[in-house]
């Protein structure tokens, strides 16, 4: 099936996919993702017993998933998101942003990364400036030299673990540990970049 020249999954394909991916673990991950997003994007420390001004994370998750199975509801674009979970996370981000922006009545410049797949060309001077900002932030958060070294090839250039391990001359296990420490800092780097008045 095609919509706007993009391939969209059929109802049956979505049903098949949801049976495979909708697990307690994935639901918990969505819950954690939402709590982190509320904290990093909106500065809200969410309380799951009380919610936030009547907004409950579970309602946003449930509505997001159900929207894929409603007539005229959300589409899954398998070419863009081969894994249905990526599409759900992207949709959840939109729901959170829309819900919270409406509630807080403020225009947050929330960039929906997964909804916007436009590749922008890299300009060397911008690239170096942004990389430097990221490195400064990482250093301020106490990142080690290896974490700093890993940031560009792993996050920005998307290199594979095995290649990185070879490049840096460290074991896969060691690399995984460094990567995990770096991963924990990423949401904060991301939010730091967002609030920077730097856009070219």
């Amino acid at each position, binding site marked *: 099936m095609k919509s706007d020249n993009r391939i969209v999954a059929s109802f049956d394909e979505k049903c098949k996919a949801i049976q495979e991916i909708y697990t307690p673990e994935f639901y918990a991950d969505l819950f954690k993702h939402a709590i982190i997003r509320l904290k990093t994007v909106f500065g809200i420390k969410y309380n799951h017993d009380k919610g936030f001004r009547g907004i409950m994370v579970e309602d946003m998750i449930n509505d997001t998933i159900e929207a894929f199975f409603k007539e005229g509801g959300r589409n899954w674009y398998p070419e863009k998101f081969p894994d249905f979970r990526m599409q759900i996370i992207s949709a959840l981000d939109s729901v959170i942003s829309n819900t919270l922006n409406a509630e807080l009545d403020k225009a947050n410049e929330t960039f929906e*990364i997964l909804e916007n797949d436009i590749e922008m060309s890299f300009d060397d001077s911008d690239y170096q400036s942004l990389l430097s900002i990221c490195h400064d932030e990482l250093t301020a958060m106490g990142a080690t030299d290896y974490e700093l070294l890993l940031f560009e090839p792993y996050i920005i250039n998307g290199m594979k673990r095995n290649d990185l391990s070879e490049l840096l001359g460290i074991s896969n296990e060691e690399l995984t540990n460094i990567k995990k420490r770096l991963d924990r800092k990423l949401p904060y780097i991301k939010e730091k*970049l967002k609030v920077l008045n730097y856009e070219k």
Partner: protein
Amino acid sequence: MKNNFIKKIDKAIISQIIEGDSSTYDEILKEEGFDIKEIETYALKNFRKHSFLLKAHINKQRDTDLLEKASALLQNAIAKNVDKPISYLKSLIANNQFQVQYRNLDSLGIDEIKEIIKDQNLLELLEQLENDQK
């Protein structure tokens, strides 16, 4: 450019979840003072409730889709005067309370066809109708 950086960072964060590794999320939440066990227990409770509702919601939507498809095929069969589907519809009408209301098949609208077939095994009916059309 800035958005490109943000996009890459977002992809890196989400790919961990897709790989089944939520340890980064757990660490971030711990640092923010959240109790991971409490969150997971609460999420599990909601998952159980919602997975049941979602199943019902999907089944309902699937039935609606089947009813739409089967009704459209029957309407098409009436228009083309295809024997088997017409006989089937006639037998349904003859065997239920609609016999007075729907004597003339040609005048049946899509909603009336839906009303007549809604309690039948729609999956089986749809397969039959599709075979009849081959």
